[in-house]
């Protein structure tokens, strides 16, 4: 909707075609009706449906609740949006708050929140904006369990585009970071259908948003062109030396893996890990093999001797296992029982030095 000062319509209020004139103070302003993009993607349909439902929700709440929203809007004065500050009506505040609540997976709230906890910008270490990796590292911790990371992006078709903050759309909500990291790559491709191209300009806004409150106020803004090296440190992309369930084949005729969370955490090659697996028929009684799909080059032949524990039914007997990560000719995690009762279940965890 665009607001236009008008001379010709100075004493006129009403609509004609796509133009609406209304009095605001001692002035008359014209607005044109928003042009529908007519796009019918799943995301567009979902967003429109959510918006429509939220708008209608305002008419379903009680008069007392509506007055509460009006009061909150008056007290707020101005409301920050990604395009700047604006005075906001009670109705629009209701829609804004509940839109962000719903984006965060929360049900709409009829009562205005007692306090508005504003979103906040993020601190970070470095980030990659490349076709293969849109990742931020060392993001500061959230301040309360309700905070989520709200990420909005807009990949500009032309590098000449500027100030496209009003075109950014929510790409992902992260309930928390992964040890300070967020990987937006998959969410970006899912949202926009294609990865970034080298040299393509992208607009990004990120903030810690209180999902209960839904009050978007402060955020970090980034506009960069995609390149292979990191934006701040100019470093080549280096994956973390980790193995997750996504990296292994959890079920084979030989083994069934319930949990695999393994990472090198220090330059001294110290691993922190937790592996829960079950040896199935076909393996030797002393070992269990978990195939993986290929790991970072930091892995070659890594061996750690670790405590393991029997199940409750096995009275928590302590075992001693040797965990070997093979990542050259053979691609598997080999767990062998060094000492202890031979059992089909393996539950090993802890922090250990990796030794050859």
């Amino acid at each position, binding site marked *: 909707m665009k607001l236009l000062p008008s001379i010709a319509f100075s004493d006129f209020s009403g609509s004609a075609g796509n133009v609406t004139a209304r009095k605001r103070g001692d002035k008359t302003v014209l607005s044109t009706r928003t042009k529908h993009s007519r796009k019918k993607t799943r995301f567009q349909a979902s967003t429109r449906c959510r918006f429509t439902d939220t708008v209608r929700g305002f008419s379903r709440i009680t008069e007392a609740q509506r007055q509460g929203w009006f009061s909150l809007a008056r007290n707020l004065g101005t409301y920050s949006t990604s395009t700047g500050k604006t005075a906001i009506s009670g109705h629009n505040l209701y829609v804004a708050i509940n839109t962000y609540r719903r984006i965060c997976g929360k049900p709409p709230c009829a009562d205005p929140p007692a306090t508005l906890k504003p979103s906040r910008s993020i601190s970070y270490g470095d980030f990659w904006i490349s076709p293969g990796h849109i990742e931020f*590292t*060392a993001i500061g*911790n959230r301040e309360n369990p309700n905070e989520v990371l709200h990420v909005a992006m807009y990949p500009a078709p032309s590098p000449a585009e500027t100030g496209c903050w009003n075109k950014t759309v929510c790409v992902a909500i992260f309930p928390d970071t*992964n*040890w*300070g*990291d967020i990987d937006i790559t998959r969410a970006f491709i899912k949202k926009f259908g294609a990865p970034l191209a080298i040299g393509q300009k992208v607009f990004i806004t990120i903030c810690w948003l209180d999902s209960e409150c839904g009050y978007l106020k402060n955020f970090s803004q980034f506009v960069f062109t995609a390149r292979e090296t990191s934006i701040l440190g100019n470093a080549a992309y*280096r*994956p*973390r*030396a*980790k193995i997750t369930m996504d990296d292994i084949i959890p079920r084979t005729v030989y083994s069934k893996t319930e949990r695999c*969370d393994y*990472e*090198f*955490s*220090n*330059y*001294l*090659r*110290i691993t*922190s*890990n*937790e592996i829960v697996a079950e040896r199935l028929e076909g393996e030797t009684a002393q070992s269990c093999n978990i195939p993986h799909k290929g790991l970072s080059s*930091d892995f070659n032949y890594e061996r750690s*001797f*670790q*405590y*393991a*524990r029997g199940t*409750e039914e096995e*009275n*928590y*007997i*302590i075992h*001693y296992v040797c965990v070997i990560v093979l990542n050259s000719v053979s691609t598997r995690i080999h767990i062998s029982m*060094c*000492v*202890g*009762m031979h059992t089909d279940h393996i539950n090993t*965890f*802890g*922090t*250990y*030095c*990796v*030794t*050859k």
Partner: protein
Amino acid sequence: MITLDTNNFGGASVTLRDFQSSTLCVLSGKITVDPAHSSYMAATRLELDLPVGFTMVRSAISNAILVSNAPIYRYGTVLQCWIEDNRLCIEKLTLWDTFGPYEIYINAAFVTRCYRGEFLPTTLYYPSVLNTDQFGIGFARYVDAADFVYYKGRLSSLPDYDNYGQGPFTVLLSGFATDVLVEIPLIVHGVLLPDQKGSMITIGSFENGNLTFSYQEGAVNLSGKGALFNFFALRGSIY
């Protein structure tokens, strides 16, 4: 040394030896837990508040050893242990609560994640046993860092109780740091007794570069069996 004054299980103040950096901490010491305390019974996990200013807010999973007060063999198991929101958190298992107060030994490293730098090759040492007529250590790996050591291995067999009694017994070592003083659980493995809950455990200590341990009275089933150890400990921890 750090002192953890408050906890959620009604325990007394705990003092642990510590090495702290932003990505790696080593803690060493033991915690006494009273399962009869009402706070313990209400807790779903054990939490000890770390002192203000403790470097690490959150860690990946590490481990601790529960050593029960069960008669003779002090059965126990390995527990999950980690740092979360400036608290040292330990998994709670109640299998040995009926034996009264138990101890949790923490001789462990705590690390953060997201390391993306280069890795150094691990330099390994192999302390040798001097009194090989009595002892042997297999599966041994020893990492000697500036501030801490990491040592794991398996005593191939323990002295015979009937002939040598309760001890103490000393494994004389060459090549293990002489400035480490640490008490550790030795996990004894052998034939399982009927209805055995957890593993047999006896306590040993590294002092002046040697390992000393003894048996509880009547612990005949410890002798002749192998015993495991796997721990981090602080350098310069003799005060």
